[in-house]
């Protein structure tokens, strides 16, 4: 009952957003901001088209490799800095300041190294995703209650058994949180890279649509990306909550 009421309230907020969109459209004119209904009709036509599929696929492939790279590197750095305390203490502030840096300033360097190519976009995406994965993995390992390790020793578990049955399950929820943030930021990185300089992908589609004054297409792509990110995040958040409850 309470859940239903809350869902209704959330729907009211969604409706309010659509109304605000319509009002803004009336205020600034339809060339600047198309109304919600024509845009959503356009979305239904545009999404099944070949041009959309091509660009969405390009973004998806780039994003996939960026994600693999940031997870592999992030987990490796996080485990190393979590297990080796001194490296963790020395490296943590360095990672935190890299995390808060506007990484877009470094994109020209990536471009000078890789040229306008997919490896460049993958690298730039991974640069965004690797830091949260590393930081949260490191914290997860550091925050293992010492009594777990004592219990493992009391039970004479081998090193491998300790890792599989104690360390892995104990750190999993927080590591998954890191993977979720890494997912979000890698996607942002890939899209920024496509927006700044690329002929492929949804990011470049948005910029092209803006320059050709095709605002319906621009908003359509933005809405699709919005929904993709929101759904993926909800799914990962759901997994995270389930893991937390189990522990």
């Amino acid at each position, binding site marked *: 009952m309470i859940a239903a009421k809350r869902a209704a309230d959330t729907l009211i907020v969604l409706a309010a957003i659509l109304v605000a969109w319509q009002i803004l459209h009336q205020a600034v004119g339809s060339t600047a901001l198309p109304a919600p209904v024509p845009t959503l009709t356009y979305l239904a036509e545009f999404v099944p088209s070949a041009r959309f599929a091509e660009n969405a696929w390009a973004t998806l492939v780039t994003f996939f490799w960026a994600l693999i790279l940031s997870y592999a590197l992030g987990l490796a750095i996080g485990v190393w800095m979590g297990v080796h305390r001194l490296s963790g203490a020395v490296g943590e502030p360095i990672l935190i300041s890299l995390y808060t840096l506007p990484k877009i300033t470094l994109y020209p360097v990536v471009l000078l190294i890789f040229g306008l190519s997919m490896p460049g976009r993958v690298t730039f995406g991974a640069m965004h995703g690797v830091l949260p994965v590393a930081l949260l993995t490191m914290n997860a390992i550091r925050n293992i209650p010492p009594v777990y390790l004592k219990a493992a020793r009391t039970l004479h578990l081998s090193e491998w058994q300790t890792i599989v049955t104690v360390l892995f399950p104990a750190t999993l929820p927080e590591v998954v949180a890191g993977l979720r943030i890494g997912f979000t930021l890698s996607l942002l990185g890939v899209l920024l890279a496509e927006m700044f300089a690329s002929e492929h992908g949804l990011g470049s589609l*948005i910029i092209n649509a803006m320059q050709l004054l095709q605002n319906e297409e621009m*908003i359509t792509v933005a809405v699709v990306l919005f929904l993709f990110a929101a759904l993926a995040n909800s799914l990962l958040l759901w997994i995270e909550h389930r893991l937390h409850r189990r522990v």
Partner: protein
Amino acid sequence: MSKIGWLRLAVIVIAVGLLELACRTGLIDHRVVIPPSEMAAALVRLLISGQANDQIARTFGIVVTAVLIAVIGGFSLGVTIHALPRVRHALDPFFATYYAVPIFIFYPVMIAIFGLSAIPIVLMGVATAIVAMIIATLNGLDRVPRVLTKVARLHRMGRIATALRLKLPAAAPHLFTGVKLAVSYGFIAVIASEFILAPSGLGRVISDAYTDFNNQRMYALMLLLIVVATVVNMVLHVFDQRWAERRGIGKP
């Protein structure tokens, strides 16, 4: 400085030194990365010549404007939403997914509406920073100990006095965390917007220098941004930690 602090400094110095060495020996092409010493020299020359001062002032002006709007607006909205539980429950799912969505994809929409000026950039800065401030305000108000409201009632304090003398100081560490995030998010959003598309500003100058193969200027301004961002974030981080420790919510 502690032993760990010295070690950290050594790691950074060695990393920069290796980069310098790799550039000097030609291991890294001069057209790709210039030696760090040259970056610093180019930055000093650029600052003395004053060529980029307008752009620097413009960008930091926009950052300050956006952060101020986000902090004041986020705090006011946070207080309002906290007073209306039903609105808050309806908005919760939106707050939870807000930073998962690359809101940056709406920057071209802002340009379409407001034209190519400083307004869309300020708006992107505010949009990125304000939700962090709202969430921090809600967190802070949630964690005001109930005993404080009882103390206020015992002393027959008015609503305004309770808010100013008890609730605000109790929520302050959380509010400061919000300010810290607002500064770093606002900074990132403004620079990124200028980079993608803007009439002028530091991000634009760097992206132009990249297009013109003007590596001296590009790396000089890059260095400036990195140094400013690092120093500002570190100062805020240190204050944040200290404040959090004093209120007993920090890491032990």
